């Protein structure tokens, strides 16, 4: 028999390394043709950090996104970054990028100011133009200024930026410490269909709301939410590295026995709401949600199973075998 149920879960997730002490740096170089090279030490592990960091550099410089190239060549030539973890890159490296781009821009504003008969402080830049903030008609091409500055004024158009957080020691008796930069929030509703004959659970619908502080790229935020939802679903229903935990017997050795969700398992209805409560010190108010998106689904799914069939299963993954055993136990 197929039975449906609904479950919800909420979550918090800290942005930044627990314990602090982490560093991210960035340099920005503006070339004579107005394009910019952004140098970072943060690795893109597929989450899209090159994209959002390039967007931040472009925004601050006032040039199109397509004019920014991103470089993370390695430890000899790149600025320092502790790493891509703790949902920290958008926040930490982002802050460094914003600072670096602003420094580079300020050099260009100095160069452009006399031509625009304004002070550098009165200038702004967007879409490849430098202009007087209160009189945008008075403008000059970003490329022209970059060329003039680099070649004729003999200036290096380079900016540097730094994010660094103090180390916060933990009191071993009370746990007192400052364990994050900012906190992100989430809520999710999941609807499942449970087949009580086979023990199979199908996730029909996932509605997710995540507070990202400020979405640098809403498409990538949705990608994180949906990707994390599917990964969380895998942990809730399918993935079991130790089928006979705690012993290591019968472990899967490959992806034909270690089962992860694929395209056919993705819920037909996935709806994402981006909520924005700006963080006090993140770039454009951003908070990190890269990790937490995978944390919410499991309790929501397992609670939805309870709603459908009336049994609590306190151990994940809820494989068909585990579910059938629980149903059997509840019957007897």
């Amino acid at each position, binding site marked *: 028999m197929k039975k449906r149920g609904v479950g919800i*879960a*909420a979550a918090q997730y800290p942005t930044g390394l627990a314990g602090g002490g982490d560093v991210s740096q960035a340099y920005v170089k503006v070339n004579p043709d107005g394009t910019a090279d952004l140098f970072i030490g943060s690795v893109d592990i597929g989450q899209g950090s090159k994209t959002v960091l390039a967007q931040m550099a472009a925004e601050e410089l006032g040039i199109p996104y397509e004019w920014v190239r991103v470089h993370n060549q390695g430890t000899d030539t*790149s600025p320092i970054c502790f790493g891509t973890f703790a949902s920290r890159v958008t926040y930490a490296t982002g802050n460094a990028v914003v600072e670096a781009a602003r420094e580079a821009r300020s050099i260009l504003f100095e160069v452009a100011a006399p031509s625009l008969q304004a002070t550098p402080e009165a200038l702004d830049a967007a879409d490849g133009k430098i202009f007087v903030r209160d009189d945008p008609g008075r403008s000059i091409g970003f490329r022209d200024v970059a060329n003039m500055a680099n070649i004729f004024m003999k200036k290096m158009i380079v900016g540097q930026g730094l994010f660094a957080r103090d180390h916060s020691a933990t009191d071993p008796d009370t746990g007192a410490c400052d364990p994050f930069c900012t906190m992100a929030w989430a809520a999710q509703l999941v609807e499942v269909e449970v087949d009580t004959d086979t023990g199979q659970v199908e996730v029909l619908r996932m509605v997710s709301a995540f507070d990202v502080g400020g979405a640098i790229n809403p498409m990538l935020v949705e990608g994180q939410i949906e990707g994390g939802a599917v990964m969380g679903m895998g942990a809730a229903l399918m993935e079991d590295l130790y089928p006979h935990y705690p012993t290591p017997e019968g472990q899967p050795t490959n992806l034909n026995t270690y089962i992860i969700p694929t395209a056919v398992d993705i819920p037909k209805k996935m709806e994402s709401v981006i909520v924005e*409560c700006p963080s006090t010190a993140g770039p454009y108010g951003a908070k990190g949600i890269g990790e937490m998106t995978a944390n919410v689904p499991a309790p929501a799914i397992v609670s939805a199973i309870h709603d459908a069939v009336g049994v609590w299963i306190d151990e994940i993954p809820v494989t068909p075998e585990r579910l059938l055993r629980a149903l059997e136990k509840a019957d007897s």
Partner: protein
Amino acid sequence: MQRTVVGQRKKRYDGLAHVTGETRFVDDVFIPGTLTVKVLRSQVVKGNIRRLDTSAAASLPGVEGIVTHKDVPNNAFGLVPDQPVLAETIRYRGQPIAAVAAHDERAALKAIDQIKVEVDEEEPVFDPQEAMKPGAPKVRPEGNCYMYGEHPCRKVVFGDVEAGFKEADHIIEGEFRTNPVEHAPMETQVSLAVPEGKGRLTIYTVSQSLLFHHGLLTGILKMDKDDLRIAGLAEKALHDWKDDVHVAFRSGTVGGSFGAKNDIHADHVTALLALKTGQPVKWRWTREEETLYSTHRGGWHIRIRDGVKRDGRIVARQVTSIRDAGAYSALNTYVVDKHCFMVSGPYSIPNVYVEGYCVYTNKTPSSSMRGFGVFPATFACEMQMNKIAAQLKIDPWELRLINAYREGDQTPTRRVLDSVYLIETLQACAEKAGVKLPDRLASMTSEKREGAA
């Protein structure tokens, strides 16, 4: 000022290159004369190596170099420097014992087959709850629980949990387990180490933590025997590199990680073999190695005891959590920290008492994975919330809304919160899902707590 780029749905910077196969990952880097690496892994779970003979393997055609624990200048690395690159003492099945660099995979595998190893076996322990008991087989000489200061666990103590339980109308208990999970990134561990002359070594790495791993690796390769004690600590080794091997990481784009590449898995072995043979060496893990022997999310066992008022306010929460770290610390001590700091959930609970144990067992070391220790914390906390709601017959939305953090609340670690927005996020989720919240819930805000001035 209107933003023109930030907030826009810009195309992924590297999206087109990824989907057209143009992106060059580490395994796509070809350097002429590169040797292939294979590693001998222990078939035994626990014991001490009595005899290790690589001479027959070394004389095989195509074999250029073999390394064992004797070739590792500083054979202990990690945040807690307790993990050997190549083992002398075996603590889990599959632990690397020796590594071969050969002209091709066939020659390397043949050599692995010819390495003779004899181990005095000892009794292992797999269950962390067994490992915690006095008299349990020792995974490591210092004991099976990592010591946080004087305590065998990370403690978070906030308010007075016993007073909270006295004040409560209901005591509701739960016990939860999350089984180990593998990251399963598309790209397995890969490392290509290229000697550049004058002691310089370039490593093409899949690391997601360049600076951290650079420190660990220079610590492992440190030649100065007097400095063995520093064991992987970054600061000293980084400053001393000029007398030493200089390592430069080259990093392209990583083919998925989810935390699988927060620990060094392959760069130390390729570095040692490149230095020994003077030739470029590449080690690419098989999917089987990735599944069984890379780090993963370790298993958790969590007990929660909550004191709850009739109206659903949680006034006390006591948590005991056990993390199965496997045989070495890797990032587990930090994973437990993060778990303990977050396990009270996004709720303002005035009395909290948490004990989180990082327990060693004779398994592949677990370590970081997306969500760190907060994944099991969220599972246990939110399961518990739904059980409380069911038992007290309170709507699960309402239970969360009345307990949710408000602006200016303090976490159990004494951090004062800002930009608190759980209530609004719950309301947004309910609205999108078509759940109609009653007015008294729909009108709540994170600005202030109802009934408070």
